[in-house]
């Protein structure tokens, strides 16, 4: 995407987000090396959330200061408190300005914590309770709400109104999705290619054989035609 922005001369900036776990992949290293080499308008947000599935990043990465990784690509990095909305905003604003002015990629290291498991199935029992409790105290949404109230941008009641509005919107969307039926089975064959003529075939075992009694009856074309000829 960032390459297309540069090619078309558009003043746009591409954001990409990854955790410390994904930052170890070869694909990630290659992507950043190339983005830096081509001076592409990219802001990388490296969420240092301390867990990659069931393994702490301290066990599988030698990096201490995650801003150091930027040196390998020859780009600047800035570390922010990832749970501080205003710090993150300011770092993003500067990185965007840099990218727009043609100075290329910036890495923002957001110090944070993974509060839920790797996926729905993962209750993350391996995460120390003390760490979860500590980071919960540092909830970015609550902290920012407190800030907004303290400095008079919002009141408790206006925030409550926003919360109810958002909750209602989410409930409605969730109910809508849950009420939908599953797609029709044969849709599985479609959308592999742009040209519908290239949709996957219906399996031959599920097709009637034209002019014959069909597969499930156990009549093969040869038998059927020999019968016809008889």
């Amino acid at each position, binding site marked *: 995407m960032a390459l297309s922005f540069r090619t078309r001369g558009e003043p746009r900036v591409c954001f990409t987000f990854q955790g410390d*776990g*994904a930052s*170890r*992949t*070869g*694909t990630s290293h290659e992507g950043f090396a190339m983005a830096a080499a081509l001076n592409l308008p990219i802001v990388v947000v490296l969420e240092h959330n301390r867990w*990659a*599935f*069931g*393994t702490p990043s301290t*066990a*599988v*990465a030698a990096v201490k200061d995650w801003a150091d990784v930027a040196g390998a690509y020859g780009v600047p990095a800035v570390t922010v408190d990832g749970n501080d909305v205003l710090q993150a905003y300011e770092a993003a604003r500067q990185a965007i300005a840099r990218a727009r002015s043609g100075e290329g990629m910036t890495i923002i290291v957001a110090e944070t914590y993974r509060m839920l498991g790797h996926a729905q199935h993962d209750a993350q029992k*391996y995460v120390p309770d003390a760490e979860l409790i500590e980071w919960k105290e540092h909830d970015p949404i609550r902290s920012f709400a407190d800030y907004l109230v303290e400095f008079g941008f919002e009141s408790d009641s206006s925030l409550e109104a926003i919360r109810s509005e958002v909750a209602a919107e989410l409930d409605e969307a969730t109910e809508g999705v849950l009420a939908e039926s*599953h*797609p*029709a*089975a*044969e*849709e*599985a*064959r479609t959308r*592999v290619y742009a040209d519908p003529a290239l949709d*996957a*075939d219906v*399996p*031959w*075992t*599920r097709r009637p054989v034209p002019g014959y009694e069909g*597969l*499930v*009856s*156990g*009549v*093969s074309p*040869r*038998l059927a035609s020999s019968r016809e000829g008889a």
Partner: protein
Amino acid sequence: MMDSAATVETTYLTAIREALQEEMRADESVFLLGEDIGAYGGAFKVTEGMLDEFGPDRVIDTPIAEAAIVGAAIGAAHMGLKPVAEMQFIDFIAPAFDMIVNFAAKSRYRTGIGAGLVIRGPCGAGSRSGPFHSQSVESYFANVAGLKMGSPARAYDAKGLLRAAIRDPDPVLFFEHKFLYRRIKEELPVDEEVLVPLGVARTHREGSDLTIVTYGAMVYKSADAADRIAEEDGSEIEIIDLRTLRPLDTAAIVESVKRTGRLLIVHEAPRFGGFAGEITAQVCEEAFEWLDAPIRRVTAIDTPVPYAPTLEDYYLPGEDDIVAAARWLLAY
């Protein structure tokens, strides 16, 4: 109290863990590396408890870096160790493709130094896991000389083949069907060694009217279909469980086809470029005159593995497909 025929109920998953444990106890050069395999015990808990028994030098948690996992395993194999690399899902083998295809597979041919390593991981669909956690990848590697590939259906073979794979001097890709991990339970012998040589198929069910060649989870769907045909139609189907995909036991397939005269190949991987095509060609080359009917295939459709349950069920070959195909062939 224990007699020589003692057995213990063992899941497909536990059988794999036992193979790893037994080989590691017997040979200090065997070690494991992969993502989340240590303290966490692996995404499917295959390596649970193994960090405690063997320590962090032999059960190595790695970064999310499949190319490096396989690359490190190749180097270790060159140095005489016997690495067993886990791909958390076999779909994740894709980033390691270069290391496997250009280094592990070609190492002996280029340099005379083999790469005796195992790359194992959960494959297969049916668990509502979507396109990145459900693939059958054997066809991606089928055209690469130098690789061996195992794909067990039974707990016994999972254990026995994996042990043989670890001892093998060449690179082995070992595909464990995740749908079977906890569903398949067998009585495995306690006192006798479970070791299954690579490259030898087994007869899962004897029959004289039609041969089904299959492997992995499709062995069970084929067996259900064969039972149904026997009950409803009175025909007896022979099922060959390949167990190993490369080297392919062509002799066993040809021997069976020469007796039954009819061949159906069933696999979970998509049809185009799948193993069924290769097997068809080999049988045509070696046993064409014995065939009484065209060779037919029952496979997944040629799409990615879909996520929605209705779509995934459509994607997968089912018992009904096998029954329909078998009846078509038997009536031919």
